[in-house]
């Protein structure tokens, strides 16, 4: 069905403190681009003391700092705002280059994936570290990046039984996505490596350098390099910097 024939986007209250905007359901770069465009439009039109806008794959949530006074007025205002806007190409985002050690000691599920997908370890590593990924959103844990853009040949289901503890920095694959555990936590994704970087720091404001819409590229490092970067991170010497990126 053509999207122009559907009723999307829908705008409706979700409780007394938020308004939910839903676009045609889907997990794709194109869909996310649209979502991010409207997200920045809303952020430009509402002060950040009053609202926070969060996104998922095909939804936006406008979360208010207090009760919404007149919900009908507010929904109408949002509808008007988004119906008037013309989608332009995404203006600005950042690209982060992230080291990952794919040593089997960290990549505890490399063997499983290799068997399932009939790929060598090296092929898995190349397939995983070639694409430029998009941060769809941050969720599940503070600082957990949901990354889209995983090569089809690496799509693999989550573990039947989640692990009780996945270590901090673990790089995993869950269905069509890849992501990094910002702290040790229970988790069901297939683990292929480890990044020595910090992805969430509660003592920094903002606590994460990443925002939905940003880009991520992984580069393989050896165990020694992993150890070295870990040390630099600990000493506060490693500075993760984003590069300006034109989609």
């Amino acid at each position: 069905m053509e999207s122009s024939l559907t009723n999307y986007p829908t705008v409706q209250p979700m409780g007394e403190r938020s308004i939910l905007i839903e676009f045609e359901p889907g997990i794709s770069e194109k869909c996310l681009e649209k979502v991010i465009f409207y997200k920045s439009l809303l952020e430009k039109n509402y002060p950040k003391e009053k609202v926070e806008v969060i996104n998922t794959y095909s939804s936006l949530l406008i979360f208010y700092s207090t009760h919404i006074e007149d919900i009908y007025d507010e929904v109408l205002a949002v509808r008007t705002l988004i119906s008037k806007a013309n989608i332009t190409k995404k203006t600005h985002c950042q690209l982060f280059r992230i080291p990952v050690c794919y040593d089997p000691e960290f990549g505890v599920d490399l063997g499983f994936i290799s068997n399932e997908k009939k790929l060598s370890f090296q092929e898995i590593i190349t397939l995983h570290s070639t694409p430029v990924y998009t941060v769809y959103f941050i969720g599940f844990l503070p600082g957990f990046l949901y990354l889209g853009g995983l090569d089809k040949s690496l799509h693999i289901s989550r573990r039947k039984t989640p692990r009780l503890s996945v270590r901090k920095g673990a790089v995993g694959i869950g269905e069509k996505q890849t992501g990094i555990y910002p702290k040790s936590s229970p988790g069901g994704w297939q683990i292929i490596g480890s990044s020595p970087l910090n992805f969430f720091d509660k003592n920094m404001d903002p606590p994460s350098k990443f925002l939905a819409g940003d880009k991520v590229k992984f580069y393989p490092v050896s165990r020694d390099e992993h150890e070295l970067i870990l040390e630099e991170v600990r000493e506060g010497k490693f500075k993760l910097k984003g590069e300006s990126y034109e989609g």
Partner: protein
Amino acid sequence: MKAEIEVLQPGLFSTIQDSGRFGYLKYGVPMSGPMDSYSFQLANLILNNPPGSAVMEITQMGPVLKFLNAGYLVITGANLSPQINKIEIRNAIPYAVGPGDVLSFGTRKTGCRSYLAMAGGFNTEKVLGSQSWYEDITDFYRLQKGMILEINESIVKPAGTASIKIDAHYYIDSTIPVFAGPEFNYLTEKQVLEILSRGFKIDKNNNRMAIQLVEIMPNEIKPIITGPVVAGTVQLTPSGKLIILMRDCQTTGGYPRILQLSESGINRLAQKVQGDLVEFKIQSFP
């Protein structure tokens, strides 16, 4: 002069809460804040505290606290038989305490969560704009024996309750006001009828993150593409379990969001304990 409180016994589960962490959902940080925001606001109002001052949220079995300095306190929300120096005191009335006085709690009479406010408010570490305790965000996430909690200086007198109308009924009422959730329309007519006509019991799995209900709702709705969730979102799992997200919930979820509690619905639910009955009452926006 700064005042302090010493934790002699931690009780079951207590945390420090202010009005919550606003602006960090985009980094995956939960909002937190008091489970029952009505009782929280009431406590600060009675003491003439600035709105949103940090209080102690006390769950079911209260702690034993020793005051090291003089101050004023008030307790709102659940009635957990609070006592000063073993003499029972009443909820929603300000009391003066002095050095050495001990606050303790007895049996639970009504509700689930009490709020202890001190004139001036608790002065604990602020992380990402909020004092609300949450594991891995704040250094502490539950009250521990031996802790010393600092109280801000207060120059105003408690307002008292003379001018405040208190709704004492809301935490014993089983009615939970709800709105239709984003996936409400996926429910069959039979499911809608069942959800809105029967009572549900609070499951043993209930905490600041989510409260589950005991009864299973036969369900064929498939999981949705992960979407935003907030406190008060009622999810229906493929196995038919109803999960009501609360103040410490994650920011996204993949189960159909069939209902959304109103703010007063969340506050009422926050006062329910395992085995309590709740009945959803659907409403439209005013």
